[in-house]
């Protein structure tokens, strides 16, 4: 039996992470799941947010 311990924080770009957590991972029919349409919506709203991008750049640089 292995114990779960907090892992050291990884410095990863949010875009790389979103590629994986939104488009990857097992899709199960939970009571709440993200549909493909909703994932597309996330990408659309991400692009819309670019215009007010100061928070985005902060997130992207992992601050």
């Amino acid at each position, binding site marked *: *039996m*292995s*114990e*779960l*311990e*907090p*892992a050291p*924080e*990884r410095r*990863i*770009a*949010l*875009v*790389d*992470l*979103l*590629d*994986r*957590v*939104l*488009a*990857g*991972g*097992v*899709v*199960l*029919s*939970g*009571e*709440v*799941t*993200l549909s493909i349409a*909703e994932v597309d*919506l*996330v990408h659309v*709203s*991400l*692009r819309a*947010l*670019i215009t007010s*991008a100061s*928070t*985005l*750049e902060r*997130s*992207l640089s992992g601050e």
Partner: protein
Amino acid sequence: MADKEGRWLYAVARDVAVGSRTLTGVAGEPVRVLESSGLAAVVSDVDLAEFGAEPLKSNLEDLDWLADTARAHDAVVTAVVRAAPAAVPLRLATVYLGDDRVRELLTRRAADFGVALDQLTGRTEWGVKGYADPDALAEVAEQAASEGSGAGTAYLLRRKAQLSARERAEQTAAARADRLHGEIAGLATAARRHPPQDPKLSGQRDWMVLNGAYLVDDVLADELAAIVERLGSELPGVRLELTGPWPPYSFAGVEQERE
């Protein structure tokens, strides 16, 4: 009143337990382990007022919320991958109603999870991103066109001349990306191409021509790094970036069950 009936799923593994140091997940809730059929689901409780289907939709459009949630999800998935020989990560925002529903899931899909865990044991996901410098590629494309020879290529050359420099550069970039992906995939157990990232999101001026994910045997990790370095130096105008190790998000393997 807060309703913490939701169970956010991070990953499914075998033989993991909570440790002495508290591991927290989304919304800062402590992570728990639910077991059934020899499998362990790593979960934390979530408030349905924030993580239920309707509120989730609007929260996902809040970039700060999305970033915090994605990083919290990844931190727990990473902890599971480090502790267990293998773990199947769940898609972001998979929520079940109550512990029993999660245990039912483990029992119902035990065979599928078992197969997926076996495939992931001893392997790690890596990312390779390829960027093309449009100017350098245009030059390479020009050169290739002028050096072309052989009777059969006459038509192609004429056709090529009709294309704009940008189109030629794009074709060159696509061909390079296919070759790169093919070579790297040759080393991998499984390979997958994610769509190129929006330059505005990635902050990169250069074109992203490859956004690949590769599931590689751990014993071949050094070889992967060497191949990426070699390919990056062989191809003028293309810059490669190796990312990872990643939890096996792109190769989670369990198919969505049919209703």
